[in-house]
């Protein structure tokens, strides 16, 4: 009975996701669509063909990065709502590099551009980290604010500095060919590039970082118990800044798939709220990087699947598809938040018992 309970607790986010999905499908049923058909469409359009699977993986890639971004900040006790702004900055830096330095040889150019993504995001993430560590202003508010500033900076650079005068889209000039990542041919034209492989490697790197390195351990200690970490000699302000820089850098890597692997330029508003869905990805992964990869794949599949519901059914409009997606995010987040609050509550209680 006890072990069953532990299993239930472990599986709770997955149960919550399934619950949200059933609720959503229930609502499409109310709209007059057969649930079996909806599920079939979801599965088929997420995984049905190499192209569909490719699109799912294409959406999964940025979600791995933003999910990791939120999870790594979470490990240091920080709530990063700024992944949306950080990913835009990472993508912008990579695009700018690809425009202003077209002469870089083909074998170093992508490496430099990846570094630009990391640095752009990291710099953007470190600012709220610094504000939190040194000024005590809360990162939730600062990261939200930084999202707006990021949008402003991106818009300025895009429209007034490197505007692509060819098209009407608010986007920059294209990056030089040396920077562009080739797309895998096995996905029927879906823009799956090396960014996907990078995402998996970075995911593994995050896990190793937390489990095996001193810095990772110190970062996690601060997240677990700041006073105890301080007492053990760890500087929590330093760790907070580091954690937010890491979070920002991870989010910035979204630019690799988008700028280097897909659009080959910076397009304003290219992110389909990846930074915010990343929060749900991290919550489903219970705030740990380990679970981010499957969680991101689930959300990627859901994103691709629901996009086609509109197309494949008669009664499910885009709004209903969004509601379905939102219900999954909501139930996962509610579950994660509940757990989080519970944990704080437990701490308080154990604290009392000691006095």
């Amino acid at each position, binding site marked *: 009975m006890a072990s069953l309970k532990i299993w239930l607790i472990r599986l709770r986010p997955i149960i919550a996701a399934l619950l949200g999905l059933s609720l959503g499908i229930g609502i499409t049923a109310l709209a007059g669509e057969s649930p079996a058909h909806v599920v079939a469409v979801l599965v088929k359009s997420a995984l049905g063909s190499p192209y569909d699977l490719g699109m799912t993986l294409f959406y999964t890639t940025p979600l791995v990065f933003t999910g990791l971004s939120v999870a790594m900040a979470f490990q240091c006790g920080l709530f990063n709502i700024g992944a949306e702004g950080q990913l835009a900055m990472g993508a912008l830096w990579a695009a700018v590099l690809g425009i202003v330095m077209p002469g870089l040889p083909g074998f170093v150019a992508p490496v430099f551009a990846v570094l630009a993504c990391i640095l752009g995001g990291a710099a953007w993430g470190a600012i709220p980290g610094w504000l939190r560590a040194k000024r005590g202003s809360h990162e939730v508010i600062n990261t939200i604010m930084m999202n707006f500033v990021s949008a402003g900076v991106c818009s300025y650079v895009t429209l007034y500095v490197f505007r692509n005068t060819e098209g009407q889209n608010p986007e920059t000039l294209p990056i030089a060919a040396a920077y562009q990542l080739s797309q895998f041919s096995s996905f029927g*034209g879906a823009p799956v590039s090396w960014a996907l492989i990078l995402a998996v490697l970075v995911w593994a790197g995050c896990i190793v970082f937390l489990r095996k390195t001193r810095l990772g351990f110190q970062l996690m200690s601060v997240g677990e118990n700041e006073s105890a970490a301080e007492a053990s000699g760890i500087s929590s302000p330093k760790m907070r800044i580091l954690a937010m820089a890491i979070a920002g850098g991870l989010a910035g890597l979204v630019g690799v798939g988008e700028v280097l692997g897909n659009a080959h330029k910076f397009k304003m508003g290219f992110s389909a709220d990846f930074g915010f869905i990343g929060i749900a990805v991290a919550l489903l992964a219970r705030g740990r990087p380990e679970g981010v990869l499957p969680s991101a794949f689930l959300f990627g599949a859901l994103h691709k699947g629901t996009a086609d519901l509109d197309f494949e059914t008669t009664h499910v409009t885009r709004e209903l598809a969004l509601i379905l997606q939102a219900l999954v995010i909501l139930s996962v987040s509610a579950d994660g938040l509940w757990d989080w609050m519970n944990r704080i509550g437990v701490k308080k209680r154990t604290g009392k018992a000691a006095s």
Partner: protein
Amino acid sequence: MHLKKFGFLGRVASFLVLALWTSLASAGGLNGVGLKVGMVLDKGGKDDKSFNASAYSGANRAKDELKIQYKYVEATDDNAFEPLLRSFAQKDFDLIIGVGFAQAEAMAKVSKAFPNKLFAIVDSDVKGANVRSLMFEEHEGSFLMGAVAALKSKSGKIGFIGGMAIPLIKRFEMGFEAGVKHVNPKATVTSNFVGVTADSWNNPPKAKELALGQFNNGVDVIFQAAGASGSGVFDAAEEKKKFAIGVDSNQNWMKPGVILTSMMKRVDISVYETIKEVAAARNAEGKLPADFNKTFAGLKRFGLKNSGVDYALDSHNQKEMSADVKKKIDDLKGQITSGKIKVPDFYTAKAGKK
């Protein structure tokens, strides 16, 4: 969907157009049955009261009148265009219409991959042997709006509020300013943009704030090209008892007495006409002539000349658009269509020039 709100004149006009086309249709033995049209709307969706709504109504009309089969989808994000266009092409749809410049790239890619299908795109110029581009001369319509504003302004201070400083909106702004200066060279135009994110098209409070700021500085007419944010400008004008000008569809009815007129962009007509052309070209088996692509593909401009862009006149703004104002505007319209006045176009103007 806005047809019913056009008022009396609008109704008469659309009736005439309709009657004309219906007669054409019967004359040519038009058979739309079996023609399958797919339409991918931009992120704004069919209820944006702007160009998506307009495209949607045009296609609906084709469905009612030409008996075509028709399905539309709304994109969730920029990366969704390509899979959606592809999905239509993979099925048995004959004509696939993309609405909005954001899908230009996806359209270019997918149209190349499916050379046997027909594609059309609204608001962008996509090259391709099987693609028709439907572009609107927003600057021409904006020029007329500038002229109306300059004629109605007492202070000589005129405002422009755009959604976002993107080329399309800059095109509105440039044409508008030229119209103002043409009527009153001494008048000044103040420009503001609602924002830098996608939210800019849907932020009436911010637009209202900007409008109030302009009115407080002496501006007495504002032209807005800000999507759904525009209603904020109308609210501000009503509050301050000043004037505003609507955009995209006929918005006169929203605040009669406040809204001088609206610059209409007839996406519906462009969509309807494109569908109709395809339907008309089909033979009894539903086959298109072998060289149809040649007549179909290419850039089709919709300006003042072919009523693709126009100003709105109905019962709601009869008082504001008095006979002499109307006469002057129609006169200017004639000069533009005859080529006597050349309206500056942001797209062809030198890059970087604001």
